[in-house]
């Protein structure tokens, strides 16, 4: 009798190959291929192609390791179709770290074939700190200030083919703050009133350069809530873009620099950041550097202190916020992928908004579904990003909310650009803007926030 049960236990025959950085074969084999990740995957929902699903991507990696599939650029391209939103991780019954496996696959290809020239440029030289990002943004600031923007925009609109990306980038760019926050924020912002906590503030590159007012509001709220906020100069990028784009080498360098920098600050109650991508990456340092004896313990201590701004607000702010004077506002929450899916932080933001008087929270369908921003995905994969965005906008609109709250800078860019271009009837706020606004009316147990640096808030 032909033993079909035996045939069911044999993988396709190939010669096992070893590729550095690729996830371990035992991890890949842990996928039981149940298909549970398919219906929740944004790219699978849009295409219904298996190769555009988490299970399909793991199958590609497994076939590469098994030597069935040569590691061609077609395979690499498929790995980059993933938005890295980690929705799959949240439903996997076998707890396979699917998102991490896909990023490891990207890193393996970079290791094997070298980083693409533009990735090398962007992730080794530009997106490595707020300063460097600032240098790159300087001409754009000039472009916006000089009125050139008004002249150029109609020309961009007509650009064909790959040049259309310029238009996308131009449209995404918000009005740049006159001065990035890292150039104006003092190293120590004292607590208003009694000092209850001493926190290290990790100021993300994007937050400083593009959303200075929002991060300024964060520092204000923290200070008003009794936190001494220490923002060490010399911070570098958290490494999220490098992690996303396969540059493990640079990611490790950045992690080591940041850990050493915050160690010098002495005792901290927490390391807080108001960027969801940063909080995720900073928490991952412990795993990332676990294989470096000189850094393993230090990275673990660092990551253990990291709190996303929602978690920290939820932990330290009083049980009721705002007062009768807080104007009523209907708000919906958009969870950044890095926050809800990757860190599992879902409740703090809901508890937090739920305790602000005057705020009515209306949940949208699938609040943690990706808005299509996904790092630089909306530039590298504009069509797919647009389809995701359209779904997200529909979900937001059907709540009737006047404000959508988030803490992902990519989400802020993506959603605000959509609101500007399509003239939609809602505003997109960073959570700190909402808090600063609500708390301005005092009488809720914590002092009113002041105005750090330049202070004015978009919209």
């Amino acid at each position, binding site marked *: 009798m032909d033993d*079909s049960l035996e045939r069911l236990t044999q993988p396709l025959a190939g010669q096992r190959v070893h590729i550095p950085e690729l996830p371990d074969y035992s991890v890949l084999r842990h996928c039981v291929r*149940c298909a549970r990740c398919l219906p929740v995957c944004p790219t699978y929902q849009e295409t219904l192609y298996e190769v555009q699903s988490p299970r399909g991507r793991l199958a590609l990696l497994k076939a590469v390791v098994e030597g069935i599939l040569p590691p061609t650029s077609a395979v690499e391209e498929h790995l980059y179709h993933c938005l890295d939103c980690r929705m799959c991780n949240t439903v996997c019954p076998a707890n396979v770290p699917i998102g991490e496996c896909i990023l490891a696959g990207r890193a393996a290809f970079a290791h094997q074939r070298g980083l693409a020239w533009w990735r090398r440029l962007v992730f080794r030289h530009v997106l490595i700190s707020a300063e460097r990002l600032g240098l790159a943004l300087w001409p754009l600031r000039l472009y916006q200030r000089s009125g050139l923007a008004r002249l150029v925009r109609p020309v961009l609109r007509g650009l064909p083919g790959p040049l259309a990306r310029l238009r996308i980038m131009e449209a995404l760019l918000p009005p740049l703050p006159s001065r990035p926050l890292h150039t104006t924020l003092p190293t120590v912002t004292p607590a208003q009133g009694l000092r209850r906590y001493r926190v290290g503030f990790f100021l993300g590159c994007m937050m400083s350069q593009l959303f200075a007012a929002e991060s300024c509001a964060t520092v204000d709220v923290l200070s008003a809530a009794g936190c001494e906020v220490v923002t060490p100069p010399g911070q570098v990028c958290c490494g999220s873009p490098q992690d996303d784009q396969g540059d493990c080498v640079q990611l490790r360098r950045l992690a080591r620099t940041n850990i050493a920098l915050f160690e010098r600050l002495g005792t901290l109650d927490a390391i807080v950041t108001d960027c969801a991508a940063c909080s995720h990456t900073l928490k991952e340092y412990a795993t990332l550097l676990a294989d470096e004896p000189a850094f393993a313990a230090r990275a673990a201590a660092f990551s253990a202190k990291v709190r996303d701004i929602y978690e920290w607000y939820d932990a330290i702010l009083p049980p009721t916020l705002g007062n009768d004077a807080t104007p009523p506002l209907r708000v919906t929450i958009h969870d950044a992928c890095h926050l809800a899916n990757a860190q599992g932080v879902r409740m703090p933001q809901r508890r937090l908004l739920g305790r602000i008087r005057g705020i009515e929270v209306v949940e949208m369908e699938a609040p943690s579904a990706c808005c299509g921003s996904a790092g630089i995905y909306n530039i590298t994969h504009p069509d797919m990003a647009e389809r995701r965005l359209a779904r997200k906008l529909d979900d937001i609109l059907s709540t009737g909310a006047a404000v959508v709250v988030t803490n992902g800078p990519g989400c802020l860019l993506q959603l605000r650009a959509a609101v500007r271009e399509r003239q939609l009837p809602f505003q997109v706020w960073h959570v700190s803007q909402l808090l600063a606004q609500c708390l301005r009316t005092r009488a809720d147990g914590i002092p009113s926030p002041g105005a750090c640096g330049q202070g004015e808030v978009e919209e």
Partner: protein
Amino acid sequence: MIEARIIEELKATLGAGRVLDTLVDRVTYAYDATWGEALPDVVVLPLSTAEVSATLRIAQRERIPVVPRGAASGLSGGAIPISGGICLCLTRMNRILEINPDELIAVVQPGVINMDLQRAAARYGLFFPPDPASWDMSTLGGNVAENAGGPRCLKYGVTKDYVLGLEVVLADGSVMRTGGRTIKNATGYDLTALFLGSEGTLGVVTEIVLKLLPKPAARRTVLAVFERIGNACAAVNRVITSGVLPLTTELMDGDCIRAVQSQRDFGLPADADAVLLIDVEGWPEALEREVALVRAACEAAGAREVRCARDDAEAEELWAARRAISPALAALGDKLGEDIAVPRSRIPEMVERIRAIGRTYGLRTPIFGHIGDGNLHPYLICDRSDAEMMARVRRAAEEIFLAAIELGGTLSGEHGIGLAKRDYVGRALDPVAREQMLRLKRLFDPHNILNPGKIFAETER
């Protein structure tokens, strides 16, 4: 391998974007939710009945195997293209064509996900009773092809009880309609039934007329704890004979309880030999009475503790424990899940036989199942890289199959035969019936192109 000219013809017929022949694409259509793998030569993603028909005409003319596939979440190897050929992936035929609340009917394409139909039906206060554990990802076409069940079959039956009519593309590309839109239909042979559980070996289902039911108003969950698993089985019979037809009677044995409790505290007693989750469904007033009857029956059967969930949150927590079994067992090692069914009265004996087989072969055999409908899912915990252990696993699985048959049961309750159990199908079927099945196969598929090698080993090419 398929000749290049045929792939070109398929591309010309369907458009190049929906005919995939690169190795990258083929690798991702090589599997289902078993451990098996085999590469198709080409993947075809039709959008319409006409495209399915055109594909089959080409396949029939060229004698190419065609393996229909939905979400490929199956547990018996049915969607694995073991003879290569065309993987006919129907996930893109995913439109709900009609929901008719007056006739209690839904008309769907085969690629619609079970959950999506549930959501659409809920908007009319209706529901579709078959809810396999894979309901949130499996397609209705796949549910038909496997005759899928689920936990609530004791009360509502299985997929075949809800299919009123089908549109099927036959091996030669011709399109056949069976059944209709009425509950009663005594006109001619029941060809619809023939395709339920046919695993893609007789034709390709392209449209399904389904029966819906009004959604009951309320649901209560009762947890009963037992020192001996035999008493839990007896309790189910007592519940039913007391006049209550529960929605579910889920059994979890001690191994399963301890596995899920080790993940987090679901409030289950780790020292029990078995627990039952009994749900009743209906009008709230009636449920009070039913819960009391369930409680009395379980106590009379020797339950150590009987507890009715106070609210939805507590009920949800108990069901979360049930859903956590599979991942919790995965933490113990690789697992081979089985799916036998026996007459309800033989369940206690079957459980003892499984445990004895586990002892004989030195394997852990956690058991859970929807026992009211006779369906048990014993798992064999193993290590796939250990050849000696896998040999024991195969012998243990075989003995479990044979025990189920001996007790008057069957090889598969709801996962199907596919590749995984086809070597035992001859032992489970009446020889005359088996011969007639093979004749039917030859009648519908004279050139053996439709999912060859599935269910019956002799159809492998």
